[in-house]
Each structure stands twice: as structure tokens, then as C-alpha cells.
């Protein structure tokens, strides 16, 4: 490897020997193409014409008035397939094509990353297989259908807890056996090097745009940038635009589940401890011996017992703060944004909305300019939200 892939002491390449050459090949290709003119022209073309970039930085007037702050929404929810995930799947998909890979495998929890991978496979003519925990397959039938419509093949995972972490395990196992022909398209800033760095690179378009947009609209940087954190990709994407601006507060919001002090939570940075999972050293939810716990959050995208290593690093050096929002608070955020702004956020993004509301209400934050990364739209969550709200649809 050219780099050790460390962020401070976090990150690295904790994988079986069989995968090392594949990671080396991937790192080489990433370093070669990330600044390649033709590659970037093609990527920019697809980001604009296929995915719908740039996305707006929308001034949420009604919510701002209600809260006495200036609230802006980075509209990643407007992208094709409904979330920021497509920024990364276009980047990695194109990279896989340039590398001559004949097949793509991916993991998915709720299905957002699976769908974003499926459509890119169909766009670029590369067959896609998506590992998805059997529990999630049953909970998210509609998304399974969407993936298969786009030509992807969904492989239900019957091992372990049958959710996202098991889907990741099986995707790794697949890749171990197929490294020559296959690219493993990881959906967040997690996994072994070079994934955390590469996924951040492809998501950093969010941060670049937001910075330009807020400077244009406000003539100054925001006071705070708030994003939800599952594996951490939408947050790293938007944070990357402001990381060197020390005066901008960066806040990551985790899925608190039933509460950080219960064992039904997904708040890895708030509650977890240092450990090794899925190829990198970061924070994990685990027991005394190091057996990985099952995470819990109402939003499938935040329902993961690990987190990207760069977030661990930013947390310990004190550059970012991490907060947890419970299922109930997230649903309040979901309703609030829908009602005040006519924008239905994904349940993941609703966590960022809910924390922004809390933040805005703190007396010391009165009048501040706040950017929320609206990482996705809520269409996928309609059935779940209705059920939680006691509505029959």
C-alpha cells in the first residue's frame, strides 16, 4: 500500500491476506484516476446529467422564523434515487469500469445504497449483486423490487443478525473469492483503506458546493453544519468543505434508537469504544470481550454498530461533536420539516433536522446560521413512518 490509510491511529487495513492485493490495486487506481482529466469529465457529466447536481442550498424560511435562526438545507434529497449515496456509487462505479472490473457487489441496509449501486450498474453496463440481510429484505420489499427493476440481483443474507453488518460480512466473503473480476462498492466512509478516503473524496462534492453556495447567499461561512452519521459518508462529504474553517462548528448526529443509555441504540461514537470491525480501527458497539453488538435505530441507514475511522479521529482531536437523537425525536423532526417546509426528509436526515432544532433552541445559538445536510428524501420511509405515527396507509 502507498498509504497506511490512518487518520491518527484510526483506520488501517484489517483484512484477510487474500484481500490485500485487491486493496492495493484499488488504491493504485483511485490515486491514478482521482485527478485524471478524462475520468473527472465523465464523472462530472454523470453527476450533472444523471444524478442532478448541483443541488440547491435552500433557505428554510418558515423553520428559520419559527426557530429564530437562519436554517439552510443542502438538498441531497433532490438527487436521482433520493439520497447522497449516488455521488459515491457514480464515482466508484466509474472507477470499477476504468479498472476493467466485470462485476460489482455491494451491501445494503434499507436499500438506498443498493439502489444507487443498481442504477449505476445499469448506466455503465456492469452487472450488480447486492447483499441484503434477510430481515431487511422483508422490511424493505419495495426497495428490493426497485433494485431488481434496475437489473441488479439481490442476495438475501441469512447469517448472524441478518441485517446490514451481516450483509457487509457476506459482501467481503464474496469479494475474497472473486477479487480478480469484481469490485466491492462500499456504501460509506468505512471499511479498510482506501475506502474511507475514497468515499469521502467522492462525497466531498457536497462540501464544495455548500461552501460556495453559503458564501454566495450569506457572504460568510455558517456557524454550524449538521449531518446525520451512519457509516459517516454524507457527514464527511459536507464536513470536508469546512474542516479547515475552525470557526465552523461541525456536528454529527447518530441514531440514538431508544436512547444512548439503553442497549437498543446505533450511537457508535457517543456510546461505543475503540475496536476493529470490517477492516478498520474505529469506534464500535461491542461487549467486554469485543463481540460486536447489534445496533438499533428506526432508520436503517443509521442502524450500524461501527462508524468511519475519520469520524473517530475528528472526534478525539475535538474538531467535531457527535450527538444522538432518539427514534421519537427523529420522527418529530420528520413531521416538523414536512409540515413547515413541505419537504419530507429521510428518517436518517430527520435525525439531523431534529438535532438542528434542539441546537437552534439553545439560548447561546440564537440567530446563528445553520446548514443541515438533507442527505435523502423520505419516500422510502412512508410505510414505516405511518406505522410509527399510528396511521393506516
Amino acid at each position, binding site marked *: *500500500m502507498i498509504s*497506511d490509510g490512518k487518520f491518527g491511529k484510526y483506520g*488501517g*487495513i*484489517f*483484512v*484477510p*491476506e*487474500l484481500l*490485500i*492485493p*485487491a486493496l492495493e490495486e484499488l488504491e493504485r487506481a483511485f490515486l491514478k484516476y482521482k485527478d485524471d482529466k478524462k475520468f473527472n469529465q465523465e464523472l462530472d457529466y454523470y453527476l450533472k446529467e444523471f444524478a442532478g447536481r448541483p443541488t440547491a442550498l435552500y433557505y428554510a424560511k418558515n423553520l428559520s422564523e419559527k426557530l429564530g435562526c437562519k436554517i439552510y438545507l443542502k438538498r441531497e434529497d433532490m438527487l436521482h434515487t433520493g439520497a447522497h449515496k449516488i455521488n459515491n456509487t457514480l464515482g466508484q462505479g466509474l472507477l470499477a469500469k476504468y479498472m476493467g472490473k466485470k462485476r460489482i457487489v455491494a451491501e445494503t441496509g434499507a436499500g438506498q445504497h443498493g439502489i444507487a449501486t443498481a442504477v449505476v450498474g445499469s448506466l455503465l453496463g456492469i452487472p450488480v449483486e447486492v447483499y441484503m440481510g434477510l430481515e431487511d429484505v422483508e422490511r424493505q420489499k419495495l426497495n428490493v423490487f426497485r433494485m431488481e427493476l434496475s437489473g441488479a440481483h439481490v442476495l438475501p443474507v441469512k*447469517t*448472524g443478525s441478518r441485517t446490514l*453488518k*451481516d450483509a457487509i*460480512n457476506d459482501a*467481503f*466473503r464474496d469479494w*475474497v*473469492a*472473486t*477479487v480478480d473480476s469484481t469490485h466491492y462498492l462500499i456504501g460509506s466512509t468505512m471499511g479498510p483503506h482506501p475506502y474511507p478516503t475514497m468515499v469521502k473524496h467522492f462525497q466531498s462534492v457536497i462540501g464544495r458546493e455548500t461552501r460556495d453556495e453559503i458564501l454566495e447567499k450569506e457572504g460568510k461561512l455558517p456557524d454550524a453544519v449538521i449531518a446525520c452519521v451512519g457509516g459517516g459518508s454524507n457527514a464527511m462529504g459536507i464536513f470536508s468543505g469546512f474542516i479547515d474553517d475552525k470557526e465552523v462548528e461541525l456536528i454529527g448526529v447518530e441514531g440514538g434508537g431508544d436512547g444512548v443509555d439503553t442497549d437498543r441504540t446505533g450511537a457508535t461514537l457517543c456510546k461505543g469504544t*475503540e*475496536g*476493529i*470491525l*470490517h*477492516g478498520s480501527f474505529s469506534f*464500535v458497539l*461491542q461487549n*467486554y*470481550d*469485543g*463481540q*460486536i453488538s447489534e445496533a438499533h435505530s428506526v432508520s436503517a441507514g443509521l442502524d450500524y454498530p461501527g462508524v468511519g475511522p475519520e469520524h473517530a479521529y475528528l472526534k478525539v482531536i475535538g474538531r467535531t461533536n457527535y450527538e444522538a437523537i432518539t427514534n421519537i425525536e427523529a420522527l418529530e423532526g420528520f413531521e416538523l420539516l414536512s409540515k413547515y417546509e413541505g419537504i419530507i426528509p429521510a428518517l436518517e436526515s430527520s435525525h439531523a433536522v431534529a438535532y438542528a432544532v434542539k441546537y437552534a433552541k439553545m439560548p447561546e445559538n440564537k440567530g446563528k446560521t445553520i446548514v443541515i445536510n438533507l442527505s435523502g428524501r423520505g419516500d422510502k420511509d412512508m410505510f414505516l413512518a405511518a406505522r410509527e405515527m399510528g396511521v393506516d396507509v
Partner: protein
Amino acid sequence: MIVESYSEMFQRVNSKDEGAFIPFIVAGDPDFETSLEIVKTYVENGADALEIGFAFSDPVADGPTVQEADIRALNSGITTAKGFEFIRKIRKFTSIPIGLLVYYNLIYQMGIDEFYETAHECGVNAILAADLPPEEAQDAVDASRKYGVEQIFMVAQTTSNERLQKISKMCKGFLYVVAVMGVTGARKDLKLSTVELVERVKNHSNLPIVVGFGISKPEHVKNVIKSGSDGSIVASALLDIITENLKDKKMMLDKISIFCSDLKAATRNKYK
């Protein structure tokens, strides 16, 4: 008890014109007592060394068979402390080398130094962490040297010759050669590429080599030993017997003893 080292063991079998037969079990699978009886059965039926796995919730290098064994062991209450207790119990009846197969998080959570110290005290000869490539292994290697535990590494089809030499410098005891492109699990056929890999590793390293992953029949064992491997690890095929006979312990142990005898027999007459 005086513990036999890997190098003594390899000399012992080699002098008899044999390769080493090394069966695997997950400590505590399907429960602590049965697991111990299975290990006894291994030893009584020709095991030259033992490979003991500590169960992990997310074993990415393993296929479904080992993962199921891990889950059974965890459900029966195995912990790292009980895993070491398991080794202590084994040491009451055998001195053959014991290698631990773990995932790195278990080592890290106990504390690297403490893990190796405890391993040494219990009579563990060697440790292999399935998700710890040489790039990340310096701390573990330092602890292994400090406590006289041998650190084992894997090499695979995808490992270049240059890398093989580098790994072989860090590794002690034996090199674990991964026979297949993939995770653990019983396979029908042994690929020609395995034999070629054994030859390639032999050409680039002076360490004894042991082939594992996918070795599931006496004829596989025979082939890898004939191709120059010093030993062979059999895992999933044995765990399959456990899985299939959970309700009848006597049947389980009978089948394991017959299978082990056959596997051991296949290691004989190495040079004929």
C-alpha cells in the same frame, strides 16, 4: 507439562515419513464439555497439533460452517476467558502444539500484551489473527516475541513472491497457506492451483508450511502433503460432522474418530 514446539512436531512427523494432521475446532462448540471431548477424540485419533478458534460475532474470513460454529459457541456462553480455560483443560491431556485462530478485535479488547501473556501461560504455541495482515501486526508481533508465542501469518494465491518473502520474515512456526480463493468451507475438489501454490511458497520461504481452507477429504490431505506441504489443517469438514450430529453426541464422536483416523492415514508415506 512440557509443551512440544511446532518445529519439534514437524521433525517428529517428518522423520516418520508423514505430514502433520491438524484438526480445528471452535472452543466451546457446541458446548464447553462436548468441545473438550471432541478435542480428546482428535488427539486420540492422530492429531499432530491442534488449531483452536475463538468465536467471533463477525468472522469475515470464514464461511457459513465456521460462522455457525462460532454462533453455537457464543450461545453456549464462551468468552475469551473461558476460551483460555479451554486451552488449560486441553493441556491436561496433551502436549502437542496448539495454535489459536482469532479475530484481532478479541486480542485488542483484552489488551495485546495481556492476551499474549495469558496465551503463553495456558500453553498456546502460536497465534494467527485472520484479519491482521503484516501491515498492522507490529504490536502483536512484538508481544508474541516477548512471551515466546509464535505469530503465524497467512499467504494466499494472490500473495506476490515479494510479499511472500516479507511475510515469511515476520512469521514464526509455520506459514498458513490458504488453499482456495475464498473463505473457509468444505470443498469437493482440490484445485491444481493449490499444488502450484505450495510449490511456489516452498521456493520462497524456509518455514514449514501448512495448507488450510477447503481441505475436506483424505485425498485432499494426501495431495497437499505429497505436493510438499508439511501439514494440513482440516476445519469445516469436521465442523460439518458436529453440525449434523448435534442431537447424538455418541454418533458425533464416533464419526469424528473414524474421520480423523482416515485423515491422519492420508498424511502417511509422504515420500513414497
